[in-house]
């Protein structure tokens, strides 16, 4: 049996084993195809939420306009309008608000952990992490794409909700700094969504399982939110809306970056 002398192969002509890095746009299609179901579901939920908030919000604003224009104030007819606004309209507003607040962690729970954990669970990391792009870039690209999309959607929803909820600020005597309102306005909501996603990705990678990652993400997020609500916010050095928003968004962003860094570190360290 003779040894094959390597012939002049198609690679040799100008072949460069020190490679140019694999171009990033390839990861766009990869992320889309592998997370298609998630992306479609999240987009559908987003569109439904936007439609719902718009339709309901227009009606609520209309009812409120009628209410404050009602004369004479205090008459039974005006009182009837007020009762209706404070019951039916308020229930819808409350439900919308609660749903919007619960959404980030529920969506992040499904979006974050599977990115790495599913590959580990099914063994397909043995394919994905031996491709030319390398496991580090693969992870960063996926997390950046999914995380950015979720954050942008969250920001849009929070702005829409702020408009939607405006009449109730007066009727329920709420302020910008009321915890539930603060959570869903400005930059806070988008930042919390991002941190939920990064937490999911990190915990899924750490625990090497999707279900465990989901449960841990839920617990971790609730813990972080509770700690912020009942402790951290009291210790902010600022007390007005925008400075507090910037501060909170700031530390959430730093935490998100740390979680992503931690995820990548875990991925690099992973030994088959």
């Amino acid at each position, binding site marked *: 049996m*003779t040894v094959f002398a390597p012939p002049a*192969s198609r690679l040799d002509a100008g072949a460069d*084993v020190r490679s140019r890095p*694999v171009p990033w746009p*390839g990861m766009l299609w*990869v992320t889309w*195809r592998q997370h298609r179901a998630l992306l479609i579901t999240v987009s559908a939920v987003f569109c439904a939420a936007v439609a719902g908030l718009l339709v309901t919000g227009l009606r609520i604003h209309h009812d409120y306009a009628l209410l404050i224009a009602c004369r004479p104030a205090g008459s039974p007819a005006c009182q009837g309008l007020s009762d209706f606004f404070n019951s039916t309209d308020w229930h819808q507003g409350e439900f919308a608000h609660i749903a919007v607040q619960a959404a980030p962690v529920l969506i992040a729970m499904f979006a974050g952990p599977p990115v790495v954990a599913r590959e580990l669970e099914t063994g397909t990391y043995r394919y994905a992490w*031996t491709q030319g792009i390398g496991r580090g870039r693969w992870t960063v690209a996926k997390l950046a794409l999914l995380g950015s999309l979720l954050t942008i959607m969250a920001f849009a929803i929070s702005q829409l909700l702020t408009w939607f909820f405006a009449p109730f600020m007066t009727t329920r005597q709420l302020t910008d700094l009321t915890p539930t309102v603060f959570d869903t306005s400005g930059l806070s909501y988008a930042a919390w969504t991002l941190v939920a996603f990064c937490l999911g990705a990190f915990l899924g990678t750490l625990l090497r399982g999707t279900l465990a990652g989901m449960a841990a993400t839920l617990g971790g997020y609730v813990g972080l939110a509770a700690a912020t609500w009942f402790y951290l916010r009291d210790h902010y050095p600022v007390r007005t809306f925008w400075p507090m928003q910037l501060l909170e968004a700031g530390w959430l962003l730093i935490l998100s970056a740390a979680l992503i860094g931690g995820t990548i570190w875990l991925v690099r360290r992973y030994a088959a």
Partner: protein
Amino acid sequence: MNIIETCELGKRYGTSWALRDCTLTLPAGHLAALVGPNGAGKSTLMNMTAGLTAATSGTVTVLGGHPAGSPAALNGVAFVAQDAPVYRNLSAGDMLHLTRNLNQRFDTSFARERLADLGIPLNKKAGKLSGGQQSQLALTLALARRPRLLILDEPLAALDPIARQDFLAAVMTAMTDDGVSVLLSSHQVAELERVADFLIVLSRAQLQVAGEVDDLLAGHRLLTGPTAEADECGGRLTVVQTRRGDAQTHLLVTTSDAAAPVPPGWESHQVSLEEVVMAYLRSPGVSQPAPLTRVQRPQPTEATR
């Protein structure tokens, strides 16, 4: 160029070593067969060479000195893991597209042609393909990357005999056409004898044999002679394995000199690759590393019929 070079490579999981003190050099242009019993460390060695696992001790470099797992290594090495992992919910066509997007080099037309030849439909989910088809799909994706080194972990396991021949034929074609070097692990030693020109034997996490098949076959002989003289004869030679019967004893010995005289009353036969491999596997303490390194004094084992 050395396509794979390891230096005292070792991997420990917890307290047990899956591979230790593995020093081997595989020159480019070979098809290396990696054989050994289950748990010997074959997959560990392959995982480390492919960059999936980091070594606990020692080093492994590929493609002429690039550290395993580095971007240059990933670019030039294609790995098909055991049971050919593919995304079960993606179609074969999607897998092509995916692999193209994850690598710099991808020969899409070659991949499509090959899948068509094999009768693997592009729009069927990979999880619905048979085990053999999944193996072929994974190999197609790996070959289409036009790698310099192809690492295949037990690729023949799910294939029927005809498919195994076709698979090996495809691998050989890649070697001749593109100069791809191949590291392939399998239990089917007899089949590999036709294609492999380099042999690596692992046993109990240690490297036993690493060398070109021609040299190995030329360097071993089977001596058959009367049992009464076996000890005296064996004492003067380097014995790998002794098979002692009531009347006759077979000694598989290494010969540094092909013209060395055969003791009177003894016969000398050439050995097949399978016989060499089986002899070493049954003699765990014995090793025959690459010819340039020092040969250790072996401790022969005995097997009575």
